[in-house]
């Protein structure tokens, strides 16, 4: 990646908290971004691959900016991404997003309720805009300068 080349792909890493409502919201929003909203600009990396030391996943982390989506304050996705050498440009916390969209109260685990689906959609739309801002810049060095400073 040269300083004047646009970012080609943004890595999305959601929470891996299985059995947690907010973890489910984080994953649903990640799927929506990667599969529907910005498939050509994003790539999903499973947190478990980083935990297990997957070589390919680690290499991707060092080559592309990353957006993390945490389901709780433990912030496993963000911590693991950073520990893996990733450049975390933006870390979203589902609870913070819910505070902005109180009308979408998430419930359910394996199957989210309507509020959870709507919250995931709202979060996905925010992430998509962040992806756009990253992939349209002509100065990737500015991304490095911002790494890890934005809260969700």
């Amino acid at each position, binding site marked *: 990646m040269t300083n004047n080349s646009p970012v080609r792909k943004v890595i999305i890493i959601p929470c891996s908290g299985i059995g947690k*409502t*907010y973890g489910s919201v984080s994953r649903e929003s990640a799927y929506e971004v990667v599969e529907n909203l910005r498939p050509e600009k994003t790539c999903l990396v499973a947190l478990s691959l980083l935990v297990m030391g997957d070589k390919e996943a680690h290499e991707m982390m060092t080559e592309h900016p990353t957006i993390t989506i945490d389901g*709780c*304050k433990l912030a496993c996705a963000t911590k693991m991404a950073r520990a893996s050498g990733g450049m975390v440009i933006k870390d979203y916390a589902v*609870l913070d997003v*819910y*505070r902005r969209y*109180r009308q979408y109260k998430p419930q359910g685990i394996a199957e989210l309720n309507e509020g959870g689906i709507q919250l995931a959609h709202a979060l996905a739309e925010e992430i998509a805009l962040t992806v756009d801002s990253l992939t349209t810049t002509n100065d990737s060095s500015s991304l490095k300068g911002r790494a890890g400073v934005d809260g969700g």
Partner: protein
Amino acid sequence: MVEYLQTTVGKFLFKVAVDRYYSNDGIWVLREGDQCRLGISDFLQQRSGDVAFIEVKPEGTKVSSGDEFVVIETIKVNISLASPITGTIVTINPLLTTTPEIINQDPFGAGWLVIIKALDWESDHKCLLEPNAYFLRMKAQAEEAAR
């Protein structure tokens, strides 16, 4: 400097500040002259989960012991809490609106809920637990939940 009783149950550490009284539900009461500052215990905040929203009865509201005075919505549950004090709510913690997570971060300090001008402290006081008594109750509840 506040001192604490503390115990570890499973992977969780629970603290009980020794300078105040407690209701059975886990609301702490710190007497300040004729006023009482109220908040929730460390155990209650940990058991309830990360706080999303808090709704407190407005300043000026008269509450009797047992009346609901706050509803806390967390990522796990909605909890309605009853005031252990009879009196008038005179101050609401302004941080509850802007940073509700302060309850999780500092339940015995900056995460206080309200200040109530007490009308009948002597009666209310008899229904409150000393720190040691609440500590034993809380520990039993934590151990029961861990089973």
